[in-house]
């Protein structure tokens, strides 16, 4: 019988670790912190090297507009989507390692909520749950430049993860994260060159590369997931070969993208029945999560409790015992 050759690689680089959240001893009010990153080998290949910390799952909560969620999600969360605090509590019951507070209501085309209103929502969520918090702006530069300073200040001391810094607005976000000592999400539009460039721009503006989590943009199953995978794979390989500008842990916006798909909400297939229709969305989300975990994603932002459970089971299968770098 022939031996299987050892194809392990010797990598010279590793992925940074980022810790989010601050306990009372650390100046915050979180009951625990979350640390991601630390891999010094390809995703989950524990025979090759340290695989880093367990991927974390952040659950998405909106500041307003929960009633517009697709039925399968509203049915899972029930009345809780009526208030960010209640929604966050429910998310923690569903196993959230962190809450990702997405300021949907701040968007000028939605309710156009004010920076002050958003800051109050942040305080509400902080007082409702003990897990660390991600605060994600509405994605419109001019509005985020007003909202993010307010929410960052409202959460000062909690070591949140604030997003997102992009090529055109990074200075404001960097200044805010430096002033209030938060970690920062650096976003790029499915372009590895821009991903690297945004990191170096932030570094030049005085932000520590080690405090960055990279968001290379996510596409769900059927909507560009393979391309997303290939970009994350290229970046991961470069990082393991020593490129410090691509050595940041990665966050994937799985829930948001998966539930945009028509297959998740109104699957147009003849095999769909009233009994199984609700499964499509959560499976679309779980499948996207399972694939992007294999590209090395360190943090997933998710929605459906069953998709979260399936993602957790996937992680447990890839990492049988608690592993750290």
């Amino acid at each position: 019988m022939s031996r299987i050759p050892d194809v392990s690689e010797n990598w010279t680089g590793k992925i940074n670790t980022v810790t989010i959240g601050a306990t009372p001893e650390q100046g915050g009010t979180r009951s625990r912190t979350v640390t991601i990153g630390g891999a010094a080998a390809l995703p989950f290949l524990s025979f090759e090297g340290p695989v880093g910390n367990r991927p974390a799952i952040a659950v998405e909560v909106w500041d307003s507009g929960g009633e517009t969620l697709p039925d399968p999600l509203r049915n899972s969360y029930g009345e809780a989507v009526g208030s960010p605090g209640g929604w966050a509590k429910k998310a923690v019951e569903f196993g959230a390692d962190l809450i990702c507070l997405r300021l949907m209501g701040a968007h000028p085309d939605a309710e156009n909520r004010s920076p002050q209103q958003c800051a109050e929502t942040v305080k509400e969520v902080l007082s409702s749950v003990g897990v660390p918090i991600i605060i994600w702006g509405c994605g419109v530069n001019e509005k985020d430049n007003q909202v993010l300073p307010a929410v960052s200040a409202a959460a000062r001391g909690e070591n949140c993860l604030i997003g997102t810094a992009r090529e055109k607005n990074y200075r404001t976000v960097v200044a805010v994260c430096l002033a209030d000592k938060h970690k920062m999400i650096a976003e790029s539009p499915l372009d590895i060159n821009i991903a690297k460039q945004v990191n170096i721009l932030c570094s030049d503006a005085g932000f520590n590369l080690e405090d960055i989590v990279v968001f290379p943009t996510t596409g769900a199953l059927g909507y560009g997931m393979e391309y997303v995978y290939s970009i994350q794979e290229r970046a991961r390989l470069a990082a393991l070969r020593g490129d410090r500008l691509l050595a940041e842990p990665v966050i994937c916006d799985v829930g948001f993208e998966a539930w945009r798909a028509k297959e998740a909400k109104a699957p147009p297939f003849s095999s769909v029945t009233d009994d199984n229709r609700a499964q499509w969305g959560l499976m679309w989300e779980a499948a996207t999560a399972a694939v992007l975990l294999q590209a090395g994603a360190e943090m997933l932002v998710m929605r459906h409790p069953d998709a979260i459970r399936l993602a957790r089971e996937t992680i447990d299968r890839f990492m049988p015992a608690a592993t750290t770098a």
Partner: protein
Amino acid sequence: MYVIGERINGMFEDVKEAIRGRNASLIQDLATRQAAAGASALDVNVGPAVSDAKGAMIWLIETIRAVVDIPVSIDTAKWEVMSAVARQAPGEKILNSTKADPEIAARYVGLARECGAGLIGLTLDAEGVPGNVDKRVELGAQLITIATDGGLAMDKLFIDPVILPVNVAPKNPGHCMAAISQLKAFADPPPHLLLGLSNVSQRCSNRALINRTYLAMAMACGLDAAIMDPLDAELMKTAITAELLLEKMIYCDSYLEAARHR
């Protein structure tokens, strides 16, 4: 690209005077500036006609060690100086250099192993600098064999196919590039391929232009180390840009600056 800074060499007037007068601050300034400019190691050469070469070399290395941690390349043709300094000097070192003659090379390999040092091996022997590619490759292969037999790892061995000035040896740059390509294929993993880059433009005009053009050409053939001037900013940018074009790094608009972060 493994850059060995060439500047601390007694052939330069300022260094010659500093050695004579034991002016530490001039040497330390050159050391820190070369390191800051991206040098991976510093070549140290006392220059010609120094009465106590060993003492001068030790003084240079100790002076450098006070301000930088990167390896020093002990540049001397004399075995007595090399063996004494390599054993005495603190920190990581590279022995610059040995010829390819078997008895000589074996001795240097032994010394390198003893000191945990790297070794630069020149593809020349008692017959002189080879006039063709084949002899260069033969001597390079010989050095690889002697190093391997002596237990020296390939990542500690630097093969130098000896570049001569283009004005007096016009075929030489081409020969060196061909030798680099062939020697790269000789072992797996391969040894480093190195050149004393500035020699290609010795006594020519447009020295900096010749140096940086040849650096890019040689890197395309597999050169991964050079004794060169890290204080030549355009030369360092050329090295980074050549690495980009050889797919050794991912592009971004600020790729030159990004290379600093490695």
